[in-house]
Every structure is written in structure tokens, then in C-alpha cells.
């Protein structure tokens, strides 16, 4: 007993002050990419061709990068001779629509909160049922981590629950395999309305590294309506937390550093 109390003292208090204070992220963290199409030679398509998930397209307006497909690898930045694409350490990337995830320049807007009645219902208490539908356990692990003392999701009134019947919505990971399609649908149907769906990770948004396989359905939206998309492969726990809190209008005034302030060279 004394040993436990002593450990309690030395192990200390470990919960982060997020969102009141900005998160500490490693310098090499690849968060929100920025694009500078003015650097692109007209006939260059190196990044477009290098992208494993076809997240980058190029037209007369320049480059467009779909965060919902992006694996946050370095294939495009490595291939680009001009440094037109760079990753910043900006972790905030969640969006309410698929369309909002497409970046041409600058950063995507802060996530829009739920409206009216939904916000009133869920703002202070949101119970989610997690469904992994082909997730590789990367996204699952970094969702799970929100439950640890470091993030302590419970302090925001957000909780992962064991049954869809107890849930206000689903948090889906994975590309939705053919073999999980029915289970996902049934789990969704079992959640009492009104309900929300959150797609976490490139897989759940677009199929991710498995997009286009015969065995998968390229994301949660193929089966259920999605209210929030959280990009990453996997998204950093802070990215997920930002998305959840933004949806619930719990972020408060934008106290953290301005978006894009922390450019990393890579």
C-alpha cells in the first residue's frame, strides 16, 4: 500500500492541459501539409505520380491535396524538386465534409461544431461506440490512448461505451472491409437516433492504403452518413481530440499558436 502511494507521488500528474495549452509534438511530426503551387514548373507532376493513394491532383489552378487520402508519408516531399509541398507540425485537421479536406493553399478551417439541438444534446456528454472495420490497429491504438491518463477523454464528457444501445454515435476506423460491412451497418442501426458518425483515419475516410481493393468499400461513408472526418494514418491523438472537441464546440477561443506557424523543413 505504501509502495503504491509512493509510486503515485513519483509518477506524478500526467494529464495534458489541452486544449488550454498547445500540444507538444515532435519536431519531425508530419501534420497539416502546405502547398505552394507557385513553385511548380508547369509540366511537373512528380508529386502527383509519387503519391501512393492519389491524394494529389494538379489542374490549371495548381496542386490540390486531399487530406482524406493522405498517408502523411514523405513520398511527395521526397519527390518534389522545388519544395512545393511541406509538412507542418499543425495537428488540427478535422473537417465536417469530405470537400473541406481538400487543400490548395493555406490551412483548412477550424472544424465546425454541431448545430442547434445536436450540440445541446452532445456537448457535455457524448458516448461513442467504436467499430473497427478493417483498421490496422494504428487508428484503434491512438483512439484508445485518449482513454489514458495523458488525455483523459472522460474530463470532456466523452466516453467509449461497450454497446451501441448506450451510444450517441459511432467512431469508425478502417476502410470497411466487405466482411465488416454488415456488422457496421447493424451497429449503426442499433444506435438510437439522433446519432453521429466519426470517421477516423485515411482508411475510414477514403480507404487509405487499401483504397480500391476488391475486398474493401473505401471508407465509412459507403455504409453510413459521416459527420466528422479526422485525417491521418493514423491521426495523432491530439488530432482526434481536436476534432472531437471542435465538433462539440469545446475548444474555446483559439488560444494555441496560429495555424501554420510551425513549419518543419523536410
Amino acid at each position: 500500500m505504501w509502495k503504491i502511494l509512493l509510486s503515485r507521488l513519483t509518477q506524478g500528474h500526467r494529464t495534458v492541459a489541452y486544449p488550454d495549452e498547445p500540444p507538444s509534438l515532435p519536431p519531425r511530426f508530419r501534420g497539416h501539409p502546405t502547398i505552394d503551387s507557385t513553385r511548380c514548373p508547369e509540366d511537373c507532376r512528380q508529386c502527383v505520380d509519387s503519391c501512393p493513394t492519389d491524394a494529389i491532383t494538379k489542374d490549371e489552378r495548381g496542386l490540390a491535396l486531399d487530406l482524406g487520402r493522405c498517408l502523411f508519408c514523405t513520398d511527395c516531399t521526397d519527390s518534389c524538386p522545388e519544395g512545393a509541398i511541406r509538412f507542418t507540425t499543425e495537428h488540427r485537421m478535422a473537417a465536417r465534409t469530405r470537400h473541406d479536406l481538400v487543400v490548395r493553399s493555406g490551412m483548412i478551417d477550424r472544424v465546425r461544431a454541431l448545430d442547434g439541438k445536436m450540440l445541446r444534446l452532445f456537448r457535455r456528454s457524448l458516448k461513442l461506440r467504436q467499430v473497427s472495420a478493417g483498421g490496422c490497429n494504428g487508428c484503434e491504438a491512438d483512439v484508445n490512448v485518449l482513454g489514458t491518463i495523458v488525455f483523459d477523454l472522460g474530463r470532456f464528457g466523452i466516453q467509449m461505451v461497450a454497446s451501441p444501445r448506450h451510444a450517441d454515435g459511432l467512431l469508425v476506423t478502417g476502410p470497411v472491409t466487405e466482411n465488416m460491412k454488415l456488422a457496421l451497418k447493424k451497429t449503426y442501426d442499433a444506435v438510437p437516433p439522433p446519432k453521429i458518425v466519426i470517421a477516423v483515419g485515411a482508411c475510414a475516410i477514403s480507404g487509405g492504403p487499401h483504397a480500391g481493393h476488391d475486398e474493401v468499400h473505401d471508407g465509412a461513408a459507403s455504409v453510413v452518413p459521416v459527420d466528422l472526418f479526422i485525417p491521418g494514418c493514423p491521426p495523432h491523438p491530439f488530432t482526434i481530440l481536436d476534432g472531437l472537441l471542435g465538433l462539440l464546440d469545446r475548444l474555446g477561443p483559439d488560444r494555441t499558436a496560429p495555424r501554420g506557424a510551425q513549419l518543419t523543413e523536410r
Partner: protein
Amino acid sequence: MTEVLAIPNGHAVARADLPRLALDAFRALVIGAAAHRRRVSALFGVPPASGAPDAASIELIVVLADDDTGLLECASTVVGEDGLASMTPDCPEVHLFEREMAEQWGIRLQGHPWLKPVRFHPSHRPGHDAWDRPAGTWPVVGVTDFFRLEGEEVHEVAVGPVHAGVIEPGHFRFQCHGEQVFHLEISLGYQHRGVERKLVGGPGKRTIHHMETLAGDTTVGHATAYSQIVEALSGTRATPRACALRGVALELERLANHTGDLGALAGDVGFLPTASYCGRLRGDFLNATALLCGSRFGRGLIRPGGVAFDVDDGLVAQLQNRLSAAEHDVTDAAQLLWGSSTVMARFEDTGRVAPETALALGLVGPAARACGLRRDVRKTHPSGVYRMVHIPTSMAESGDVFARAYVRWLEIERSIDYVRTQLGELPRTSPRREPAALRPEMLAVSLVEGWRGEICHVATTDEAGRFRSYKVVDPSFHNWTGLAMSLRDQQISDFPLCNKSFNLSYCGHDL
């Protein structure tokens, strides 16, 4: 002894040199493996050449691991329309490999005691289906035969695919008499994403990303296994510095997962101090990996030819400091666990797997070492930095939850030492060398001791130097049946504890 081709881990040979055995000789080789102290690391069908997807015959390749000599013995055979007599009755460790080849290539296996689908997908060879299912239909996952216990007061408990936690899907069926479990049957396939099939024709721009997400918690392990394959097939050597950094990353991956597992086990028996501390400490190890490469899971770090991120002295010092801090706290958390009699009462004698069972099933990794089986690829089939600097194999005897937990703890201590040593003496070479093109008509085998156990990749190339086949054997493939056996005669309420003590991968199994 039958003719085999013996190669060390991470080597490639010409396909033409692979002995093609008569079916009987091949069967005898596999069945006799255990008696000759060999393990079955891989046994699989190779896709027919691209022009003949519905070929009448399928080539089988086996890779037997000899842990005494460190050699991998390879041989092949051809199976025609008649299929083959199942080897499972004489060699239980191939039971799932046989089910897999039946499912993938429609190979008929006579006398397999429990021939069911593994992942529930249509056959990859049109016109060939082991169960004569109609062509063009997708089998319904989980709809298959299950063992059933008959009798009064006997009942069946079915769990999943969707579980109560944040966890991947799988289906578990318990045959119970009251609280007592007579048998647990595990039916997977829900996570099947068709990765192996997509690897054929590669390497392409998605290949490394497929590898990194085969089992997302084993990114470094699988990416290293793949890189060794490319290096073997192209005749490229990863630089010494790359090998050392790969070792660092692999041990950090082990540290994060083992620490998380100790915490999860503590949580399952309601011992919250260790559960909370380890939950945080797991993240500290993941964050150390993120210091290296920006990703907590090591995405982007391991690449054929080396590593994509180098470290400087400042970063090394930072890593060392974090390691020391984490070492202090994880030691404290673990000692609390071992010092708690109530925890020990729950861990000891729960979920015991007998050494004979572990041997017969071909268990790998901590689950095998917890039963007294000395199986650790880092020691017996070392590649990369493990050839230069050895790491002691951590063992326990009792085969129960305690043993599986304790092996993890021993490995945590040793991995911390290993990382510290490696960081202290990083070779001053470049971190990466551009690999050459893959040589045509070759076969390569690569083993890596991931945190769950042996990861085995086997690739063959076609005449153009593209992957003609790519086989992935995740350690979970060997070990799921071990979990099922550990539940025999246990209380059903001990399932979560037993399950965590194995902590197997669903997607690594389902691919």
C-alpha cells in the same frame, strides 16, 4: 533426409535451385519436421503464372526453420486437381496453413480434421473452390460449422465480431458448462483487406505502405521484414547505421507494446496503478519513435536499403534521456504489479498452455517463450544488427498468464539495454543505400522477431523481377489457436485476461 535448399535468413536464391519434390516426399518432409526439430515458418500456394489464373495445378512452397543451425529449409511441390492428403493429423502446426491454401487456391485437402475458411473470401483461382461454392459469390463471413458441445446444462456463448472495447473485430464461440469453458473456437476474417493479392506485381508505390499497415502496431517489424526481402532480391546491403537504427526502432516497438500489455493486464484484474502508469509509459515509448521519424508507429522510418531518417548527437542524447526516465517509471510500475499478491493470484495458473501443446501448434514469440520454448528469431536466425550484438532470450516455464506477462517484463528490461547500447555506438555510415532492381526468378525469405513473435515474409519474382508471389505470415497466424487452447477448463470470465496475455493481431492474421 529429403532434398531441401537451406538458406540463412534474409537470403535469396534462384527459383530454379528450389528442390521440386514429389508430393509424397513433400508431405513426408513437412510431417517429419517436428521430429527433426524444425518448425513450419511458412507453407503456401504460389499464384499461377499471370497467363494462367485458372491453372490446373498449384505450386506449394514450405519454409522450415531450424533453430539449431539458423538455416531455413525450403522445398516445393506441385498439387494437381486431386489435391493432397492433409498433413494436419500428423503435424498440427500446419492446420491453418492448409485451411489457407484451400481457401486461396481451391486446393482439395483430404482428411483435414476441420477444413473451414480462414478469411472468408472467394477463391483466387477461378474454377477451383475447396468447398464447391458457386462462382461469383462472396462467402458470408462467420457462417460456417462450429464445434458444439451437446448435453444438459451445456451452453454456447458467442461474442463478436464487434467487441466491447476499442479493438479489432473477430468472432469467439465458447462451449461452456456453467462458468467452465470446454472449448473456444475463434473465427476471424473480418479484417481481410486483400493485401497479399495487391502485392503481386510489385514493388509499387503502395507496397511499403501496405507493409507498414499489415498490422499497424507492428509497422517496424513488417517494414523491416519487407526491406530485407527487397535487399535480398536486389543484392543490396542495408548500411550498418541503418541496421542499428532498425534495431532501435524494433526494440522501441517491442517496448511500447509490451508496456501497454502489462498495463492492460493490470487493468483487467483491476489493479489501477500499473494500468494507468503503463498506459502513459506506452505512449512515452511511442513518442520516442516519433522523435526518430515523426510517427508514433514508425511510419516512414524503415525503407529498403536502410532508414529514411537519421539521428544526430542531440537527438541521440534526447532519446537516451527519455529512455532512462521511462526505464525508471516502468520498473516502478512493474514492481508494483509483481508485488501485489492479488494480481499474482489472478495471473498464476490462469490460461495455462502446456509446452507440448505450444510445440504441436508451433507457437512463436513471448507466448512460446512463456512455455519454455526457446524461440526467438533475434537469437536463432539473426539478421541486421542482431548478427553483431546479441540479445538474451527471455524465458519462463509455467505457460500461464503470469509467464506471458513476466516474459514481457524481462524483454522490456533487455530491450531498454539494447536500445541504449545501440544508440551509444551507432556506426558512422550513411543511413541508407538505394536498392538495385530486383533480380528475376528468385526466391527470398526474411524473418524478423516482432514483438508478438516471428514475422515471416517469403517472396518470389517473375521473369521481369516483379513479385510473382508475396507471402506474409504474421506471428498471430501461429498463435491464435494457442489462445483458444489456453481457455480450456478455464472460467469464461478469464477470457479477457487470457486474450490480453496473448494480445494477437486480427488484421495481421486476416491480411
